[in-house]
């Protein structure tokens, strides 16, 4: 683990005014506790968080961006994820409203100081936080609970859908299947595809159970996809020579079959322009799993 230069840390500390006279806004400089001034960790590895007192500049900063933190115990860690000398702040809210499950997964945020002051770049429940591989812009990935990887895209942390499970790889649908697959998206899509050669049907197979595969079809091209939710997809099962729709939704081409099984079938994670969703088997169809999806970063 690389140690943060002491001089830089002191400079960061000195930039802040004495606590009594310091501005209390969100964009006020962060003054680290004296016992942590000399070392700001960086590099890959677990990010260890420690509970902070009821009144501190870190708490003020966290509460300014995440109002839910007010009045509940909070643990934080100062960590330089991109090793640029300006550390990020990782905070976890420990109150019962912010936690769920056993072991408790509690709301965890990563705050970063940017051009517009401090901003939230990741917001997700977790029990364990790790700094992962270095990626775009020299910023390390954040790995939550050892299974969810978030990569930096220059603007915020985005879920690495492919890393979450077995990636679903799409290819152009064979011409003989194009018609039957198109009809799964409605008569409008059939009309649209007939008029525009740029409207494509992509198809992939996904192993959702040992020895059991489903067909995943996507509609792509001008007019088929939304800027907010992405392109329509269908999870299909071939039954008696015809397609039976097991699920329908919207998302981008990043899709993965997760190792998590539900009622005998694996979950499917679908990325979208602004986040991701998880679909689970209900016994009859794949449906959105409440609480498993999320929006990314501050978006």
């Amino acid at each position, binding site marked *: 683990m690389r140690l943060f230069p002491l001089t830089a840390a002191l400079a960061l500390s000195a930039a802040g005014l004495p606590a009594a006279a310091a501005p209390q806004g969100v964009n006020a400089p962060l003054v680290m506790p004296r016992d942590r001034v000399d070392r700001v960790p960086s590099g890959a590895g677990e990010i260890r968080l420690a509970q902070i007192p009821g009144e501190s500049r870190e708490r003020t900063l966290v509460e300014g961006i995440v109002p839910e933190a007010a009045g509940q115990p909070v643990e934080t860690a100062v960590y330089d994820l991109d090793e640029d000398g300006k550390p990020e702040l990782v905070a976890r809210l420990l109150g019962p409203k912010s936690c*769920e499950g056993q072991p408790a997964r509690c709301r965890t945020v990563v705050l970063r100081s940017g051009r517009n002051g401090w901003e939230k770049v990741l917001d997700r429940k977790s029990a364990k936080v790790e700094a992962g591989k270095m990626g775009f812009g020299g910023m390390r990935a954040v790995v939550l609970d050892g299974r969810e990887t978030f990569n930096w895209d220059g603007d915020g942390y985005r879920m690495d859908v492919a890393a979450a499970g077995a990636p679903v790889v799409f290819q152009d649908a064979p011409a003989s299947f194009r018609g039957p697959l198109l009809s799964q998206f409605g008569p409008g899509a059939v009309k649209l595809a007939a008029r525009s050669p740029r409207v494509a049907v992509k198809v992939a197979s996904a192993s959702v159970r040992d020895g059991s595969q489903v067909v995943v079809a996507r509609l792509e091209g001008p007019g088929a996809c939304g800027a907010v939710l992405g392109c329509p997809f269908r999870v299909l099962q071939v039954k008696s020579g015809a397609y039976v729709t097991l699920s329908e939704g919207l998302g981008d081409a990043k899709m993965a079959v997760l190792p998590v099984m539900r009622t005998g079938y694996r979950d499917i994670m679908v990325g979208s322009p602004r986040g991701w969703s998880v679909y689970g088997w*209900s016994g009859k169809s794949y449906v959105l799993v409440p609480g498993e999806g999320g929006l990314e970063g501050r978006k």
Partner: protein
Amino acid sequence: MNRFAPRALAAVLLAACVLPAAPARASVADFVSATCGTPCADPVGEEQRARDNWSALTAMGTTQWVGSTMGSTTVDASGLLAASRYAGASELDRWLTTGVTADPAVAQQMSLALQQFSGIDVSGITGISKDASATDPYANQAYASTSTSTGSSSNLATNLVNALQTSLNSGTAFMGPGGGGGSGYCNKGVDDALGANAQKYVNNMQSLATSSEFGFSQLGGSAISSGQRSASGYYGSSCLDSMLSGTRDMLFKPPALSSLLSQLSSMFGGGSGGCGNAQTIMAQLKNSMPNGVFASGLGGFFPHASMTSFEGDSGSATTGFANGFGLASSVGQSSIMRQPASLTSLFSR
């Protein structure tokens, strides 16, 4: 006279013809900033997406919904573009035509977009100035996608005519050309096809009324066409029939039969007895129906179809259709959207 003057004048005229009008450009920018936000990260991409979506909406015939109402908002081109920006034009078309979406939240967001972003001038994208009329001014637009390389652009109105005419079977079209309402439609073929479709419905209703099995209650229970007494039709189950058969509670006092017969006699016989006015009344009834059919809230493409309200805390939208003759049906959500509440308990971890 300056010899360059004619050239300068020609250049000015050419520029006026070729250069895009400033208001149109401004309207596109207004739409992009309203839907994408300010500043928009990719305004050029947003504008191209809007153009692609409009081409797709035109190709699918989704512009037929222009002029329909949703709550207190009239659906217009900017609303359609904003809703398609959310989930894509094809998904918007599917929701508007079938009431089905991938998720109730998607329907909610699209209905919000339709209402929130209506009224923005998007003529810079659609190429047609917003029309004040309730009919669809975009129906005759050819599909002009920039992506079309086959040159197979076709007219939406022609497709509509073909679709409607295919659905028709033989019948007597007494309404004739233009029976669909005449001036409300730019394309005469559409007008004719709608008229024929409405005529078919009227004919069906007439057949139903005069059938021996389901015929309306006639004097003496006889159906018009067969001369048979209707035992299982409306007559057989009518309240009047039950009352006359004496099976009702004695405390209930029915209207006097003589009074009813007198009123019927007066109505059909014009005071002279018999049924002299019956044919006239029937003719009036038949003539009144087509006009009623085309008093539509959806620009006339779907007679008597109207969007029901999109209120309610669930956010789910249901599109209701009434055919104007008291027979109503509703297009609900897909089975996936109707998962029982207990299903969600499977996923609580």
